[in-house]
């Protein structure tokens, strides 16, 4: 694992998809009028014969992708996460998930990372996709993991919702990082607190753990790239020895990672206090910049630290996150 501040790269997904498609002739690339924004301009340029413009017609695009998968293709469908999951939900269910077809729905710009306001914020996509039988739900925001994960994701026999950050992607993991679709990974071991994070919140969770460590709180950090099926065993093991648990997700606290962890803990009868960091059943307005929304809706690193401090009943003011790390 690298140290903060992380280097960033542009469009790791787009490059990784082209590389994979060179080896896998059954891969098709579909776009819903967001080609450059979903990093697949490279695919369009390099493999045009397997590139399909669906236009601004997500319902048709998803049902078509299902039919293409019936004929042996591996369609990767691209748009923003919000348009990928809300409008064509019935099509995802009936044309893809119920027939259990290997369509990969790739939704960019998760949660409040969008500058586009509530219409563009995928704050319920994980919840919607989790509720759909047969669907695998993956949330990634690290360049190394995106590249490492893509071949495994391609091999999943059923449908996948892949949630990706748009634009600059941090490099958190070393090149030799091994990605697992079945294991949640404890990145930092701790004894007081477990912070369980997915996607864009992973770097914040790591920062929070560092800040807390300096203040004498030993926090573990668990990365959960695959929210469904959830690796409940690893989660339960990670939360069993600590005094408090915090989940961190760039999503509504209803139905996403926090809910999944809560369900797993409740079913395993793990009686540890839990707090979910995420959007608290609200739409997020005022979005000129993502960092503003992360602060405004309490999704920042400091919010994880403050929550931990309160949950562990520590005395005095919580430690303050260094300014360079506070934004994200």
């Amino acid at each position, binding site marked *: 694992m690298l140290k903060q501040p992380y280097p960033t790269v542009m469009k790791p997904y787009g490059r990784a998809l082209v590389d994979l498609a060179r080896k896998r002739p059954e891969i*098709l690339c579909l776009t819903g009028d967001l080609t450059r924004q979903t990093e697949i301009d490279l695919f369009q340029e390099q493999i045009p014969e*397997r590139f*399909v413009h*669906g*236009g601004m*017609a997500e*319902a*048709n*695009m*998803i*049902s*078509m*992708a*299902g*039919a*293409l998968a*019936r*004929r*042996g*293709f591996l369609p990767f469908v691209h748009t923003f996460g919000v348009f990928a999951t809300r409008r064509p939900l*019935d*099509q995802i*269910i*009936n*044309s893809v998930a*119920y*027939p259990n077809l290997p369509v990969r729905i790739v939704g960019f710009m998760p949660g409040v990372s969008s500058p586009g306001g509530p219409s563009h914020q995928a704050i319920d996509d994980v919840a919607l996709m989790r509720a759909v039988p047969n669907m695998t739900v993956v949330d990634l925001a690290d360049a190394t993991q995106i590249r490492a994960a893509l071949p495994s994701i391609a091999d999943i026999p059923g449908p996948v919702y892949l949630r990706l950050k748009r634009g600059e992607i941090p490099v958190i993991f070393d090149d030799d990082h091994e990605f697992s679709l079945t294991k949640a990974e404890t990145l930092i071991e701790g004894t007081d607190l477990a912070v369980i994070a997915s996607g864009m919140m992973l770097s914040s969770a790591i920062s929070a753990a560092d800040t807390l460590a300096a203040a004498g709180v030993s926090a573990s950090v668990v990365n959960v790239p695959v929210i469904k099926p959830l690796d409940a065993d690893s989660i339960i093991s990670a939360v069993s020895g600590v005094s408090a648990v915090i989940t961190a997700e760039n999503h509504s606290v209803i139905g996403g990672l926090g809910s999944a962890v809560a369900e797993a803990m409740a079913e395993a009868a793990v009686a540890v206090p839990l707090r979910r960091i995420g959007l608290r059943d609200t739409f997020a307005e005022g979005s000129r910049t993502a960092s503003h929304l992360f602060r405004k809706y309490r999704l920042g690193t400091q919010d994880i630290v403050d929550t931990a401090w309160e949950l562990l009943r520590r005395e005095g003011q919580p430690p303050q996150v260094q300014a360079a790390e506070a934004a994200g």
Partner: protein
Amino acid sequence: MTAVDALTMARYADVIRLRAVRMVAPHGFGYLGQALSSAELFATLYSRHYDPGRDSLVVSPGHYIIAAFAAAPEAGLLDEEALATYGFDDSALEAIGTERSPAVDLTGGSLGMGLSGAAGLALADRLQGRSDARVFAVVSDGELEEGQVWEAALFAAHNRLGSLIVLLDANDSQVDGPVSSITTLEPIAAKWESFGWAAFDVDGHDTAAIDEALTAATADTRPAVVIGRTSTKHGLSVLPEGADGHFIKLPAPLAEAAIKELEARLA
């Protein structure tokens, strides 16, 4: 088409009706109207155009799966005995089409999705080099109220999916009443034409007219739609005047009378 062919297809349509009555009868109600309106469309398609070994068949409104099942034995797609299980617990022949429905390539109960699936199959045929394959999609007029149908129509025309042929059962029937009383769809043919499709507007109970339209649709390089003007009561005079075409009630005495009428005509 010869007079003998026309007679054969008309009989085939009545065989579809008779089987559909027998499938619905044990339950006392069901999607009989869909089979009555589309019987000639299926009979003509299966007799003279659809080759299951080469082509794909999509039944977009899953409620029409009864007609596909009833037509399937002649095409070698289903044993006639299996029809007796239609609509019973755990039968693969569920009343509204599912993934387990035999005899079709694609169907579904959430309406308006089938044409997109058909476009996907036609695109797959092109990408995989099956230049002689065609995709037939049965679509209902009520489905035209779903926006997705028009998304698919735009896509198919823009991408010149000429192997795609829609059989549109314009029976003017939906759950709340006549389609024309709920939403004005006319002019249906002009709508498709303006979307870049070839459109053929015919009497959907006239097998010769359907056959001619399907032949022209196949020859046309554009995606094509054959609009069959039909009735959910056609070919069964014993049905009461006010029968609900979407979901016909068929108590035992009526079922008996219906079977008698159709058997007499087929004798």
